[in-house]
Structures are given as structure tokens and as C-alpha cells.
């Protein structure tokens, strides 16, 4: 998406400014109110919101960087996005484990005997349960609940804009904001259940649920970025489709090496070698035809919005073909025979791969059985005289076929003068 022409509500910069603003406002409110009511929990959450401004600012900077052209970087700096989303995924994963650890400590603290036993074996951090003044419960619910709802709304906005603009880092940051909101809501629910209904373990059980949700989101963000940085291929099915599409293009004899990977989240790259016998004059249009079909398939890859395609051409490997004309000598000249049993001489023809020169011919006296000769000399085709092309030829075998020569004169048949026999 061209951010210059995007509507304001689809601009990734606006989305991140909104995110940063809500973090700043929440931080100020929580720190001030938390200080006023001596609530370390609220103050701590306020500082947490303050810290969240940093990754949001980095994401905004990353979006700006990846859109610029940088000399010496053919793929620009799109991979910065993968690095940022990798970091966000890692951070989120750490947050998830931290929540789970806190919940585990909390659960253990509810069983004093178990708690003592474990602490005698391994040193554990001190777990401090949250105690809230009953009079402040509902104002706290209002503040934290409102904060959570704002987080969820802003998160939806970030994710929506990230998908529209193709900025994976923005989408990832939105998911991170969403987990923040979810953690706040669930934490709040836990506090209500504990304070109002005296369900001591509720907070910690909900903590495990949140941990699962956060870790799942972290993996969703982390894995694709890791794949992009490690240049994982786009998948066997994509590569199979690309080869099939290329083989359907006129002039393509075979496909050679094929590499596919992503740069950033939205750029799909294909490097392909194509085997063709067509001369260089035709390569321009052959490349045009191949790029069309490859681009179409690459844009079907999830999240792909841009493609980079490089096609190299190579000639087919040497594939020598040896034909042998079964001949006899009549009046001092070679003549192609109709029946293999009548052959006393063979005219061996090694076909050229191209038209740059004549195929090589040489004649030899046939000293063994013709089929033995053919096997020994790796002959692929035996040519017999058939004045009427409709006359049947002998049945061939796996590596040996028969062809018809309409003229018994090999010079007429081959169209080239031969050395006299």
C-alpha cells in the first residue's frame, strides 16, 4: 500500500500513533491514581504501559525503514520487518512464560506444605498475593476494565490496518496489544473472583489460561518471521505448482534448480532455472511468459503482496542420439535394406544437438548380429528402407526403436554427401 495515498484510517503510522497515545494516557492515569491510592499493582501496570511505548515506536520506525529504497540492498530492508516481528514474538513468549510462572507460584502458595517442601529443595522467588482494599474494588475495576477495553479496541485497529497495509510488524504489535488487554481483563476477573467470591485459586487458574493464549499468539507471530529470516521455502506444493506452470509454457523443455522463500512477510521470491533449446533472441518473450505464470502462483501464497522473480536459462544437457542405417553394398555404393537380416554394413549417425554443423556419419562392416551390435554400441534407432511409410516396421524394445527411410540411397535420405565407401 502506498502510505502517501492511503486514507488516514488505513495509515500504519496513524495506527501506531494511536497505540502509543493510549499507552501514554493509560500510563499517566495508572501511575497517578496508583500513587494516590497506594496501589503498587496499578502503579506497576502503569510503568508496564510506559515501557510498551518503546516497541510500538520501534515498529513505526521499522515500517518507515522497510519502505525506503537503500542502495546496495536489492530487497530493500524488508527483512527488518521479520526481525521486529521475531522480537515481538519472543517478547510475547517471555511474557506468557512469566504469567505462567507467576500462576504456578501462586498455586503453590495456596498449599503451604507443598510450598515449604519445594522451597527447601529449590530457591523460589517470594510470591506476593494481590490484596485490594474492598472500598477501592469497583473503582479499580472501572479503571482496569476501561484500560483493557481500550487495549482491545486499539489492538483491533492495529491488526486491521496491518492487514490492509501489508505490514506484518504492525499486525504483530496489534496482537501484542490484544494480549495486553486480555491479560488485564483476565487479571481483573481473577481479582473480582478472589475479593468478592473468595475463590482463592481463580486468579491463578485464569493465569494459566492466559499463558496458553499468549504463548499461542507468540508462536503465531514468531514462526513465520523465523521462516522468513532462515529463508524457508514456500512449500513443496507451491514449488510443484511453479514447476508445472513453467512446463506448460511454450519453449520450456524442463525446469532446473528452483528456490522459493520470503523476504519480510509480504514479498515472495522465486529463483528458477529453465532448460530451453530456444535461441537467445526468444528469451525475452519466454521470460515474459514465465514471469506471468510464476507471479500468478506466487501471489496466491498467504500474505504475499509482492513478488521477485529471477529466471535463468540453460541449454539442455548433451543427449547424444545414435541412429544406425542397416545397409548392404550394391554396385560399390551403400544401400539401405528393408530387412535387418540382409544388412552387411551399417551407417552410424551420431545426431547433432543443434543445427550448427552436420551430424557425424561413418560406415562400418557389420561383423556381428545387428541387434548385438546395436546393444554394444548403444544404438537408439535402427533405420530400415520403407518406400511406403505406411509399411509396418519391426517392434522396438525399451531402448531401441525403428524408423523408416523412404529412399534406399542414404545420401538422398540424409541430405548430405557422404565419404565414398
Amino acid at each position, binding site marked *: 500500500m502506498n502510505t502517501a495515498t492511503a486514507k488516514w484510517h488505513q495509515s500504519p503510522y496513524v495506527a501506531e500513533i494511536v497505540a502509543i497515545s493510549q499507552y501514554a494516557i493509560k500510563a499517566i492515569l495508572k501511575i497517578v491514581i496508583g500513587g494516590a491510592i497506594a496501589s503498587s499493582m496499578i502503579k506497576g501496570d502503569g510503568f508496564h504501559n510506559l515501557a510498551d511505548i518503546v516497541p510500538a515506536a520501534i515498529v513505526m520506525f521499522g515500517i518507515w525503514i522497510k519502505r525506503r529504497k537503500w542502495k546496495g540492498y536489492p530487497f530493500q530492508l524488508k527483512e527488518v520487518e521479520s526481525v521486529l516481528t521475531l522480537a515481538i514474538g519472543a517478547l510475547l513468549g517471555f511474557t506468557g512464560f512469566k504469567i505462567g510462572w507467576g500462576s504456578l507460584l501462586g498455586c503453590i502458595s495456596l498449599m503451604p506444605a507443598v510450598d515449604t517442601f519445594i522451597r527447601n529443595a529449590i530457591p523460589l522467588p517470594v510470591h506476593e498475593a494481590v490484596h485490594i482494599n474492598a472500598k477501592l474494588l469497583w473503582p479499580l475495576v472501572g479503571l482496569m476494565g476501561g484500560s483493557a477495553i481500550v487495549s482491545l479496541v486499539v489492538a483491533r485497529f492495529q491488526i486491521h490496518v496491518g492487514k490492509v497495509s501489508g505490514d506484518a510488524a504492525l499486525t504483530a504489535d496489534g496482537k501484542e496489544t490484544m494480549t495486553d488487554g486480555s491479560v488485564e481483563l483476565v487479571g481483573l476477573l481473577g481479582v473480582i473472583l478472589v475479593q468478592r467470591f473468595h475463590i482463592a485459586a481463580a486468579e491463578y487458574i485464569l493465569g494459566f489460561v492466559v499463558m496458553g493464549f499468549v504463548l499461542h499468539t507468540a508462536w503465531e507471530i514468531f514462526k513465520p518471521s523465523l521462516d522468513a529470516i532462515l529463508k524457508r521455502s514456500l512449500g513443496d506444493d507451491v514449488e510443484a505448482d511453479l514447476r508445472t506452470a513453467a*512446463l*506448460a*509454457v*511454450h*519453449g520450456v*523443455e524442463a525446469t532446473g534448480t528452483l528456490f522459493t522463500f520470503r523476504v519480510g512477510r509480504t514479498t515472495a521470491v522465486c529463483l528458477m532455472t529453465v532448460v*530451453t*533449446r*530456444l535461441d537467445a*533472441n*526468444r528469451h*525475452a*518473450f*519466454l521470460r*515474459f*511468459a514465465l514471469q*506471468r505464470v510464476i507471479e500468478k502462483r506466487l501471489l496466491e501464497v498467504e500474505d504475499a503482496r509482492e513478488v521477485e522473480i529471477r529466471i535463468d536459462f540453460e541449454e539442455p544437457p548433451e*543427449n547424444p*542420439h545414435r541412429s544406425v542405417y542397416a545397409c548392404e553394398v550394391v554396385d560399390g555404393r551403400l544401400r539401405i535394406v528393408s530387412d535387418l537380416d540382409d544388412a552387411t554394413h551399417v551407417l552410424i*549417425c551420431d*545426431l*547433432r*544437438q*543443434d*543445427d550448427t554443423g552436420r*551430424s557425424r556419419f561413418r560406415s562400418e562392416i557389420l561383423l556381428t548380429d545387428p541387434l548385438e551390435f546395436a546393444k554394444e554400441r548403444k544404438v537408439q534407432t535402427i533405420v530400415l528402407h520403407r518406400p511406403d*511409410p*505406411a509399411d509396418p516396421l519391426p517392434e522396438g524394445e525399451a531402448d531401441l526403436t525403428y524408423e523408416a527411410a523412404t529412399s534406399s540411397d542414404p545420401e538422398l535420405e*540424409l*541430405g*548430405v554427401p557422404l565419404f565414398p565407401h
Partner: protein
Amino acid sequence: MIRVINDSNRTQPGRMASSYAAWLGKALDSTSQTTDSDTTIFVSHLPVAEATKACPPGAHLLLSLQEDGHRQSAQKNPICLPFGSRRSYKFAAPLAFRLAKQLGVGIVAVHTTYRKNGLSSETPEDHFTPETQESLKLLRQMAAEFGVPLTLDVQMASEIPGFVVRAAIIADCGLIVMERGRVLYGSNAELVAAGTPIPILIVNNDGKAAQ
């Protein structure tokens, strides 16, 4: 009846041209029973100048371009027919429609037109000359007579050979059918033949070839 012949297969490319000719002959149900009024297509793997010399008199020249027929038998690709004024496709169009009918494929008629002075329309058909509009009408009639689907691709492009090849590629055509032109060298047909990766049938327009 359409009769398919090919040149010597004494090189690997030649063998591929023979294979292509064999596929085309079979697809057109060619037999060895020939008559004087048969349309003859000469399949060659050689460059256009050499192939033209090798082409028997009265035959149309098909440059198979390293195709061996296997691709065509798997795909039903339409035939590309560039058209302009009447004389540019007088012999090519009937042969193209006959081939399309027998192969069971459609025709993609392509044309480039210049922009008419003072006409602001972006629709290429609005810039057709009366002659070209007449040509299009005739092509539609031919399509109806032969029962062959006809698709039109018209652009305002200044370069004809490049446009023809790109249009054929975009339409996934399997064959381009063009008339030779009034000159052998430098004609649009030769320029297209020099660059196209798609086989091209250069139709003999000296009036001697059977249609």
C-alpha cells in the same frame, strides 16, 4: 484436407519437429491419401529464412520452435490470429479457422490500432478504421460459420510484432497464424517468428497454396 509434412530429422531439433508434425498430423487426422487440392503444412525446426527455402512450393510453413507435440496434446490452447486490413489475413483466416475447428480450440483475433486524432475515447474499437471494422465483421461471420469461439484482443500499441507475441502469450495460445506479408525479410510475420516462443504458421499468400 490438411496434409502435414516435415523436413529431415537428422538433428535433435529436427526430431522434435518431426514429433510435432506427427502430433499435428494426427490431431488433424491427416492421412497419406493426398489430392491436388490438399492444404500442405510444412513443419520445420530451421530459422525462418532457411525454412522458407526448404519449404515446398505451395506449402504453408510452420516453425515448430523445439516443440515436440506433447505439450499441445495435453493442453487445448487457442490459435492467435493477428488481423488488420482485409489483405493481411485473406489467406490466413480461413486456414486458422479450419485448424481451430479440427483441433477443437478457439481463435484469439489480435489487432493494434492507432489513436484517431481528436478522439478522446480509451476504447480501442472506437479508433478502428472502416476497413478494420469490416475485417472484424468478416471474422465474426467466419467464426459463426465454422462454429469456432472468437475472442478479440485489441490494443493501441505502436509496435506490432511485440504486441502480437505478448497477446498470444497472455491468451495462452498454442499457435500463431500469420500471412507471410508482401516481402520475405522484415515483414511482421518474420519479426514475430524471430522472437516468439510459440510455434508460428506462416501462411503462403502467393495464391498458389490450396486453402
